[in-house]
């Protein structure tokens, strides 16, 4: 069973979000997603400062099996990206909720976070997808 930390928000596209103290939001892919993809060999990240709409492609993660788009769960501006992933994309596999984060966004409206899945709802979503 994959790891779903309590303190995060989730999307049905297997992204996680964490609201930081400064009002920014950190985005990554979930443990389930990294496991389904297999070992990553390349991560493409957006330019800092670029504006994203909800549902825009904000990153591409590529494994030996597949290349998948990661969609921006909220509208916002890219404040920072995880530059270590250029050399070590496997950080996403090893620690998807920590060193393997992808993008930090300044959301246009951080209350939109409330409408995303919580840990319990995401766990249920994963269980239903299993059937």
């Amino acid at each position, binding site marked *: 069973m994959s790891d779903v930390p309590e303190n995060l928000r989730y999307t049905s596209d297997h992204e996680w979000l964490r609201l930081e103290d400064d009002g920014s939001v950190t985005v990554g892919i979930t443990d389930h997603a990294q496991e*389904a993809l297999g*070992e990553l*060999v*390349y991560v493409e990240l957006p330019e800092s400062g670029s504006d994203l709409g909800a549902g825009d492609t904000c990153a591409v993660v590529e494994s*030996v*099996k*597949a290349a998948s788009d990661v969609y921006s769960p909220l509208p916002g501006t890219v404040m920072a990206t995880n530059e270590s992933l250029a050399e070590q994309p*496997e950080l996403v596999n090893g620690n998807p909720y920590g060193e393997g984060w992808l993008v930090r966004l300044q959301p246009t409206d951080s209350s939109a976070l409330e409408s995303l899945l919580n840990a319990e709802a995401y766990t249920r979503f994963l269980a239903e997808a299993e059937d």
Partner: protein
Amino acid sequence: MYEALIFEHSRPGRGAPGHAPANPPAPKLAGHLLRSAAPALPAVTELQVVRHFTRLSQQNFSIDTHFYPLGSCTMKYNPKVCNRLALLPGFAERHPLGPESHGQGFLACMFELQEMLQAATGMTAFSLTPMAGAQGEFAGVAMIMAYHRSRGDTQRNEIIVPDAAHGTNPATATMCGCSVREIPTGADGDVDLDALRAAVGPRTAGIMLTNPSTLGVFERKIPEIAAIVHGAGGLLYYDGANLNAILGRALPAAMGFDVMHINLHKTFSTPHGGGGPGSGAVGVNERLAPFLPVPVVGKTEAGYRWLTETDRPQSIGRLSAFMGNAGILLRAYVYMRMLGGRGMRRVADYATLNANYLMSRLAAAGFRVAYPERRASHEFIVSLKDLSRDTGITAMDVAKALLDKGFHAPTTYFPLLVPECLLIEPTETEAREELDAFADAMIELRNQARHEPEALKAAPLTLPVRRLDDVRAAKQLDLAWRPTA
């Protein structure tokens, strides 16, 4: 078993002097254009070269030696007579710039090939120039865009693609300057019509569909899909990847498609795999005919001749230096002439019969097939999700272990919609005994997964190379290896 690189056989001073010119003339080139050092070539005898390449050829895992159920690739037998006739000196030694009057036989074959493809698909006209399936797709969507622009309809720049599509479809749309709108597949394997209705509009240039789809089922709602897309002013593109399943039995034009490509190398059985050569002939209905890529072959009272930009001013242009992969087109021509209309129907009948037989055997043995309530087309999907959960043995492990059992692996992890999947396409050219042997091997491997999974993790054990480090291969590309000596 491991065959050393030819450079590892190399020893200074060795060579094949019988094949080298004794006194090569000094090159008439300016000094700065000449090499300063000798090229890195292996120094080996002629016999060493012969043995090296013969051994390599014996290691081929090929359709001539093994069952090759690689889904979505249609690895059927390639009749040797097609090869032999395409290599007749009159074809093989013909120069592409030779005058039309000296190539009437070749041009006649190409003209008849265009006509046979029209009959097999219901399309009005064909161009044979695309050099591969992906180039055929590019030509098809470029024609859709040229059609809209010719009518002053310049805002149409969206191509709709189902989520089950081949990856080349969204790539093609993007290369043609369009954006892609993905629509989901319903639980029954058909396109979600409500999502399609919501996706079409004044910006819809067209939809790209494979039918049967990559899920190995026939898209039953195709008349409704055609009505929705045409109603919104868009056109329908048929990706011919899976034409083998319906050859001679259903016409893409009758389903409502406006333009299509055919992978001649797949459906019409020319040797392929490992990157080509291919042929992606494109067919169109009346309204797209002016935009076909040139040249196409025309027939006049004086004989056959190339129709070019002068005859076809609205053409999207040229896709290759001459007129496509002539050798592949000739092989496909011979194959079609040998089959005839009745033979083509038998291709579809036996391709679907073999797929359904194998699917039934595996389903009866307890394998989970992706769409058990649907009849398979020419291929079907098995999901090893349960096995993977219970034993840790993945679809990739099973694929590798099948190699040890003497079978080429099915397509793995495609389509992406089905977890831990194998996409299995037996083709019409396999005997029942082969299908049974494959099913037996799958059952045996499943038993092994339950009792000694470690052995499967290590497979393949009998091949010249073991399991490759595919992560390292993707990260540390070494495309310019050279000997260190």
